[in-house]
C-alpha cells in the first residue's frame, strides 16, 4: 500500500524507470531495506556478497533498486554501479557510533564522484528502533550535511526492521526524481 501510493505519484511520467543505488557500510541495513521495499520476509537475511537487485513495478513505473554489499573489500566495486543513477540512498547504522567517522568519509567520497554529480541523495538514519541510536539531527550535524550545495539532499530517520520512516524517505525520492525531470 505504502509503495503503491508513492508510485502513483510518479504517474505523470509513464513507463519511467528509476535507478536507485543503495550504498553504505556493512551491517547498515541495506538488504533489509531492500526487502522491506519489496514486501519480502526479512528474518533470514545474510551478509551481502556482491549485490542484490529488485525491481518493484506498479502502474507503468519501475523502481530498480541496487543493493551493493558494504564490506570494505568490495567498496572499490561501488563505482561500477554509478552510471545513470537517478537517486542515491545512503544507509547509516545510527547505533554504530564507532563508525560514524568511517561512514562520513565514504559518503564524502561518493559525493565527490563525478559520475554521481548532481544526483539527489537520501540519507537513511537507520536502526532507530535501537535505544542507542543517534537521532537524525545529530548525524546530520556530524556529517556536515548542511554544507552540501550541489544537489538535493535529505536525511530521514527510519527503522528498516519495523518499516518506520521508509515511506517518508521514498516519498522524498520520488519527489526529487520528478523535480529533476522538470
Amino acid at each position, binding site marked *: 500500500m505504502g509503495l503503491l501510493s508513492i508510485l502513483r505519484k510518479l504517474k505523470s511520467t509513464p513507463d519511467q524507470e528509476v535507478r536507485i543505488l543503495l550504498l553504505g557500510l*556493512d*551491517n547498515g541495513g541495506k538488504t533489509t531495506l531492500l526487502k522491506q521495499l519489496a514486501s519480502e520476509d*526479512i*528474518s*533470514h*537475511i*545474510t*551478509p551481502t*556478497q*556482491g*549485490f*542484490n537487485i529488485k525491481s518493484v513495478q506498479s502502474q507503468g513505473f519501475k523502481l530498480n533498486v541496487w543493493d551493493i554489499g*558494504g*564490506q*570494505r*573489500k*568490495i567498496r572499490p*566495486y561501488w563505482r*561500477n554501479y554509478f552510471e545513470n543513477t537517478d537517486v542515491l540512498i545512503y544507509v547509516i547504522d545510527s547505533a554504530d557510533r564507532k563508525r560514524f567517522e568511517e561512514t562520513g568519509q565514504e559518503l564524502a567520497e561518493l559525493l565527490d564522484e563525478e559520475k554521481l554529480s548532481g544526483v539527489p541523495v537520501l540519507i537513511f538514519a537507520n536502526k532507530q528502533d535501537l535505544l542507542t541510536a543517534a537521532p537524525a539531527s545529530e548525524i546530520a550535524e556530524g556529517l556536515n550535511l548542511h554544507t552540501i550545495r550541489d544537489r538535493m539532499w535529505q536525511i530521514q530517520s527510519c527503522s528498516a526492521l519495523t518499516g518506520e520512516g521508509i515511506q517518508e524517505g521514498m516519498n522524498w525520492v520520488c519527489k526529487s526524481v520528478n523535480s529533476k525531470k522538470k
Partner: protein
Amino acid sequence: MLGYVWQWVYTSYLRYWLKWLIRQVTGKCELQRICSRYRPGATRTTSAEYSLRSSKSRVLRGALESSQDKLQQCVAEIMKEKNVEPQKDPLFKESLHTCLLQITGYSSLYMSVEDLRKQVFSSENGGHEAMILKLWDLLMPNVKLESRLTKQWGDIGFQGDDPKTDFRGMGMLGLVNLLFFSENYPKEAQHVLSHANHPKLGYSYAIVGINLTEMAYSLLKSGALKAHFYNTVKGAPELQHFHQLYCYLAYEFDKFWLLEEPESIMQFNQYREKFHNVVKTHLQEPDVSLTLTLSSKNERK
C-alpha cells in the same frame, strides 16, 4: 484441465477402490506392499509418508505427528488397524518403524535447526566467544589473533572488525556450521579458505559460508532434503547430519566457483543461484546422497 479432473477422481475415489481391490487379492495392505517392494531409503520412506498422509484413518495420519518415543506404540496401533499379522510379515514392524523415525525425525530436525538459528550470537556469552576464537585457531593455526576486535577477521572472510554482526538472520547456526566444517574436516576447510583468499578468484570465506548455511536451512525448511536424509540416515536425522550437509555445500561450492571462474566477487549471487539449481536437481534423484567425498582420502591416512 482433464488431468486435474482425473487427478481429483483418482485421489478421492479410484485410489481407495484400487487399494481395496489389491488388498483383497494380495492380502497385504498398501504399507506392507511398500515395505516389501522397496529397499530401505528415500523411495520406501517417501511412499510410506504419502500413504500415511492420504489415509482416511486417524491412527495412520496421527503417526506422522507422533513423538519419537511413542513410535513403537504407533506401529502397534497401525498393525492392529490394518490387521497385519506379525507372523505372516515379520519384517514389516521394523521397516515401518524406521520409516516413521525418518519422517518424524525430519520435522524435529527442522525444529532443532530453527532453535539454533534463532539464537543470537552474544559477546556476553562465554561459550559463543570461545567458539569464535576456536574458529580462528582452526582456520589460522599459525597466526595469532591480536585482539578480539581486529581487521584480522577479514582474513577468514568476515566483513568488519567484529564477526558478531555477520551472523544476522542465521544466528548461531551460521557459526556452528563454520566451526563444524573446520573441526571435522580441518584440511579441507583450510584448503577451501586458501581458494577463498585467491587474489583473483577469491571470495569472503566466512560470509559465503553463512550464505550457504542459509541455503541448507531453506532447503531443509522446504522439505527438499527429505530424500537425502532418508537415504543417508537409518533413523531420525540429527543436528550433526545437517552440519554434514553444510560441509558438503561448502566444499562443493568452492569447487563449483573455481570451475566457473567468475569475473569477480560481485557475481556471487548469480553463481550462488546456479549452484543452488545444481543442488536442487540432485535432490530430485531418488537415490540422492549429498555426502562430502574427499578427493584426498588417501592423503589423509
